[in-house]
């Protein structure tokens, strides 16, 4: 905003200078046009105002910025203002005037929209020297940030208090580390062990991988070995192949399969008995992981069975039943209500968070689950477990009602990783406040690719608040102006993982399908507390 002086100065210039006036008018008109385009945003399309309009739904609703949208619906807000005013007076519905006003405008097809020329400096990058691929029973010290299976590890300290972690170095060497343990990852081929036990599996491709302990360097020559380090003893055992020991105090030594050495305190290395069983190997860790998997699945199952009877449930899809679903996604509510069962279109059954559990994979633009949920509600909570392969649609659907009328919620993710929840405050074509678009900061990072994440959103009509959650933590909180917060919500026909049905045989439709999988979806007629969302996450995480 200009201050008083600035305004005066501007007025003077405009009054005295014809070309300044002209420039000003040009700029203002551009702003007006931007406003008209911006208003186009997510407002309904022309055919939404009147279902009989014979134009197909265009896929250009895909615009990520809501700006390159074509014109047919763009003037809807002003048209709506004028229309409602006049309809009231005349009692006639002049749809024809909407059509003639807009139908001559060019339309765009998603594929023809130019996206920016690639800037190579903006290519996403990641850093790390290794990756955590398995965590079984791991607890973290206060000074170590918890990492998840699938996370890349940068160079630096890695410490666990209990449990086993499988670390795969980018060179190809794999360590199974047993807590308590502390390592310093130096590079993709080199680490230092402070204390703890580990078993290293080094395939030929990773030959040369080395670990250093104080004054001892263990160079692997393509093999499998164990290393244990405590304040008063260091031991190396070779289970297969051979390693080179480079003690700083004595000569280099070759250790072969079945051999072991141990050093007490500051003494010399002495031969010892190799005990391969005392080090957990990859296969052993895998079976432990399976046990942990089963335990976590059991914990979720218990929670899920309890949830089925929660009186606040609108609909709960546990994706729990094994085997042939007959293209039906059973509603898990108890008492059972088969009318709430979803119909699976396209989406494929795949393994869920645990082996014992199923999920649906949405890949094709038409993949979806159709649901029909009657009734009126007020506050809402929507939550799901999803695995996102990529956000390559402009709008990546989680749950969208077919239309977008008064009280209907839309929940999706924008291609830049922002969670997006909105409920329309007025019916299509009616004047009134615009919908409030609750947009979280972007949560997406490439390392989330293919990981199961928990997403939730609460819509609280008592406090006029919308809260987005990611993995049990509030991601953003939105205070919504009361006028934009309809107190009655409804679902009707809707899609999980996609949006709307093509209305006509040849109609094109916006590609909004989720590119990924979902293995639990729940909707409550209440705003859950932060603790309840956290519990949902804790009981459902892998």
């Amino acid at each position: 905003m200009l201050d008083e002086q600035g305004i005066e100065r501007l007025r003077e210039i405009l009054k005295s200078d014809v070309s300044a006036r002209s420039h000003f008018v040009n700029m203002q008109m551009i702003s007006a046009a931007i406003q008209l385009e911006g208003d186009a945003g997510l407002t309904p399309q022309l055919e939404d105002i009147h279902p009989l309009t014979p134009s197909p739904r265009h896929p250009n609703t895909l615009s990520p910025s809501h700006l390159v949208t074509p014109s047919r619906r763009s003037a809807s807000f002003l048209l709506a203002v004028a229309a409602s005013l006049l309809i009231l007076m005349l009692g006639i519905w002049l749809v024809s005037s909407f059509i003639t006003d807009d139908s001559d405008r060019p339309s765009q097809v998603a594929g023809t929209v130019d996206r920016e020329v690639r800037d190579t400096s903006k290519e996403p990058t990641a850093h790390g020297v290794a990756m955590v691929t398995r965590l079984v029973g791991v607890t973290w010290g206060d000074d170590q940030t918890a990492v998840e299976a699938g996370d890349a590890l940068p160079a630096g300290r890695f410490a666990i208090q209990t449990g086993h972690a499988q670390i795969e170095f980018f060179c190809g060497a794999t360590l199974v580390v047993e807590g308590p343990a502390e390592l310093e990852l130096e590079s993709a081929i080199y680490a230092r062990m402070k204390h703890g036990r580990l078993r290293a599996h080094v395939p030929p491709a990773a030959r040369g991988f080395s670990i250093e302990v104080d004054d001892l360097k263990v160079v692997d020559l393509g093999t499998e070995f164990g290393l244990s380090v405590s304040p008063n003893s260091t031991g190396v055992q070779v289970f297969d192949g051979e390693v080179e020991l480079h003690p700083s105090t004595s000569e280099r030594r070759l250790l072969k399969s079945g051999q072991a050495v141990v050093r007490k305190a500051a003494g010399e290395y002495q031969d010892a008995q190799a005990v391969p069983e005392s080090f957990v190997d990859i296969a052993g860790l895998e079976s432990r992981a399976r046990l942990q998997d089963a335990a976590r699945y059991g914990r979720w199952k218990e929670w899920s069975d309890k949830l089925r009877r929660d009186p606040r449930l609108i609909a709960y899809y546990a994706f729990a039943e094994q085997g042939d679903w007959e293209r039906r996604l059973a509603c898990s509510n108890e008492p059972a209500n088969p009318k709430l069962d979803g119909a699976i279109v396209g989406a494929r059954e795949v393994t869920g968070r645990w082996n014992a559990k199923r999920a649906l994979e949405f890949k094709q633009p038409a993949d979806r689950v159709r649901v029909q949920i009657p009734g009126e509600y007020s506050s809402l909570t929507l939550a799901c477990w999803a695995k996102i392969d990529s956000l390559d649609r402009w709008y990546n659907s989680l749950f969208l009602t077919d239309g977008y009328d008064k009280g209907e919620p839309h929940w999706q993710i924008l291609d830049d990783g922002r969670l997006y929840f909105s409920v329309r405050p007025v019916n299509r074509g009616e004047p009134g406040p615009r919908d409030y678009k609750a947009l979280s900061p972007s949560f997406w990072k490439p390392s989330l690719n293919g990981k199961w994440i928990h997403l939730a959103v609460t819509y609280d009509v008592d406090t006029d608040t919308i809260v987005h959650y990611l993995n049990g933590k509030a991601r953003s909180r939105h205070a919504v102006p009361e006028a934009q917060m309809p107190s009655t919500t409804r679902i009707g026909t809707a899609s999980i993982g996609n949006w709307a049905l093509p209305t006509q045989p040849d109609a094109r439709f916006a590609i909004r399908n989720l590119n990924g999988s979902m293995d639990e979806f729940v909707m409550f007629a209440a705003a859950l507390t932060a603790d309840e969302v956290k519990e949902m996450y804790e009981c459902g995480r892998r």
Partner: protein
Amino acid sequence: MEQTEIKEQFVRQLTQHQNRLYGYVYSLLGDHGRAADVVQETNLVLWRKIDEFQPDKPFLPWAFAIARFQVLACLRDHKRDRLLLDAELVEVMSDEVERKADQIDAIRAALRHCLQLLSANNRELVDRRYDRGMSVADIAEAVDRTIGSIKVALLRIRRQLAECVQQRLAAEE
């Protein structure tokens, strides 16, 4: 002409010219909410004066004249708010604004093309400011930049868009 027929004609004209009226009013007031209110007021006044409506005469000059009165009334009512233009400037600039507003559809068509040429960051800014109506301060916080830098960025974007739109319009002529 039948009374109903005249009314239908009127409604058709009024609906057809909503964007032009908005462009006119917005250009003079520079605020979306206020402009929307004034357009609505203008619609009402036009409706009340339907007796003066002559189907065989151009609709726009009449509608712009009413809109101008409404803009002036708005300036009077909001004297304390520091609006950019004063009554004198509105009178001086009205003709030119009318001419430009008449072209708003062409401007929008050009703009739609030009918006696609913006960088992702800039489009994001436009999206936040105009589509979502965020304040400059909120945007600055959201993208972790200073308010000043956002203002400058938005100004540059508008200039860039204006240039692009003008080139396109010129090319079409």
